[in-house]
């Protein structure tokens, strides 16, 4: 049995940062709209492909990030206003619809980008490695870690310091009551759908640079996101952060120390947490 070293711990943390970016959007949609958005993984992958193409075409990584966020936010708008709006309140239909959207998006991606593996090109300043504490560590992965922390802070401020944030939190608690207060909850739903989708798109481009993009990458990220939201509790930002840290670290520990049990190392603890806290660590009824 191998033991962990600093590089592997950092790998776990950077994976956690990426997973947090993706799962934070997932948990907001799950918590507020009460939808398990099974298209979230497909939005991640589609965002990654968009980011890949724009970065390749313009040579500008930041433009790739922005384009993937905007385009996937637009997809979020279409999914919410064009599809989910008509089945609101019918949970099974909503979930099946998002699953259908996932299949369609993946097929469209397959038509456009084919089945090859791509990697988003990263800018020169983020290439190479940084030396510290006696190790060389990829600069880009440290950037991902920093970005994950930045996204957490930005989302925390949005949720806790703005009126839209208060409405989203209130909506997670009791959407019907928010509506009875004179707020058009559909607009809050739409804003959250677009925000959540844009985070999936951002994650796609960020992750596409170090996990690469290929036709089944969406389901892997979706399974991780689900585990994170279930562990952290739906609708909780702090829950998503803690869940992402747990899943990121457990995944790394699993791969290093118990490679043949890698998935069990994630889902075993998840089951244990659910046994004692059915709503997740930070979830509320």
């Amino acid at each position, binding site marked *: 049995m191998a033991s962990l070293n600093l590089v592997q711990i950092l790998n776990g943390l950077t994976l956690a940062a990426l997973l947090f970016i993706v799962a934070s959007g997932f948990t907001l949609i799950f918590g507020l709209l009460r939808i398990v958005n099974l298209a979230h993984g497909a939005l991640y992958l589609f965002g990654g492909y968009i980011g890949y193409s724009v970065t390749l075409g313009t040579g500008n990584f930041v433009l790739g990030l922005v384009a993937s966020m905007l385009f996937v936010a637009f997809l979020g708008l279409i999914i919410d206003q064009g599809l989910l709006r008509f089945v609101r*309140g019918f949970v099974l239909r909503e979930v099946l619809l998002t699953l259908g959207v996932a299949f369609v998006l993946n097929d469209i991606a397959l038509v456009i980008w084919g089945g090859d593996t791509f990697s988003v090109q990263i800018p020169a300043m983020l290439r190479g490695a940084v030396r510290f504490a006696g190790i060389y560590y990829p600069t880009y992965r440290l950037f991902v870690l920093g970005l994950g922390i930045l996204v957490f802070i930005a989302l925390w401020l949005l949720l806790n310091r703005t*009126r839209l944030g*208060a*409405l989203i*939190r*209130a909506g*997670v*608690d*009791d959407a*019907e*009551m*928010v*509506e*009875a*207060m*004179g*707020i*058009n*909850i559909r607009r809050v739903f739409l804003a959250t759908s677009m925000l959540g989708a844009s985070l999936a798109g951002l994650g796609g481009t960020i992750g596409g640079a170090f996990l690469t993009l290929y036709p089944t990458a969406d389901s892997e990220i979706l399974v991780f996101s689900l585990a994170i939201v279930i562990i952290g509790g739906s609708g909780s930002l702090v829950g998503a952060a803690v869940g992402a840290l747990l899943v990121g670290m457990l995944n790394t520990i699993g791969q290093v120390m118990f490679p043949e049990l890698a998935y069990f190392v994630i889902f075993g603890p998840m089951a244990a947490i659910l046994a004692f806290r059915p709503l997740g660590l930070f979830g*509320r009824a």
Partner: protein
Amino acid sequence: MLEVRDLHSFYGDAHVLHGASLTVKPGEVVALLGRNGMGKSTLIRSIMRLAQPQVRKGTLTWKGQDLRPLTPHEVAARRIALVPQGRRLFASLTVLEHLTMLKPAKAQEGWTVDRVFSMFPRLAERKGHNGNQLSGGERQMLAVGRALMIDPELILMDEPSEGLAPVMVQHLETIIADLGKTGLGILLVEQNLYSALAVADRLYVLETGKVVHEASAESVRNDQSSLMRYLGVH
């Protein structure tokens, strides 16, 4: 004026309101009495146009305008506020956020945070606490304060005295009576006849989804026997 005529509401196939009718005039405090399961909350939810129940027949008008095609936020925009059964505060919002989610804290028109706090000084002391950290009485104050922030002309209150200590119930009665005097219409769902009598101008008794009795509070104060029959109180 709120006018409900021959309202039939359903939860799925369950026919809950069987032609309920009532009116609330401006500045009038109207109590809706009835035992559990008689359709009082269903009537409130129907007026507010919440997703359930479904209104299949009858009219619902407010100042002459039909409420039936509206969504709840559109009803609220027409200055009808809801103080729901069980308070339904937002567990993750602070007291202050409950009041500022609709209006910026600096807003000066109509009901302001300061005005709510002067009515309920206890809430001012607790403004940083979350909804789920308050006592029962404080929760009810906040539920009323939150409703006032939409500058209502009519408040629908669904069993506000439920689960409160007697001293809090009295405090609430004073508040409701004071609000009524400011010209606000109040439709108050109550199980307790004496609480209702303390504040109401008129009373309706709802039984199995129908209004079976209407009386002025004054006449009931003089002779409670007719009402007791409907409420099953002896």
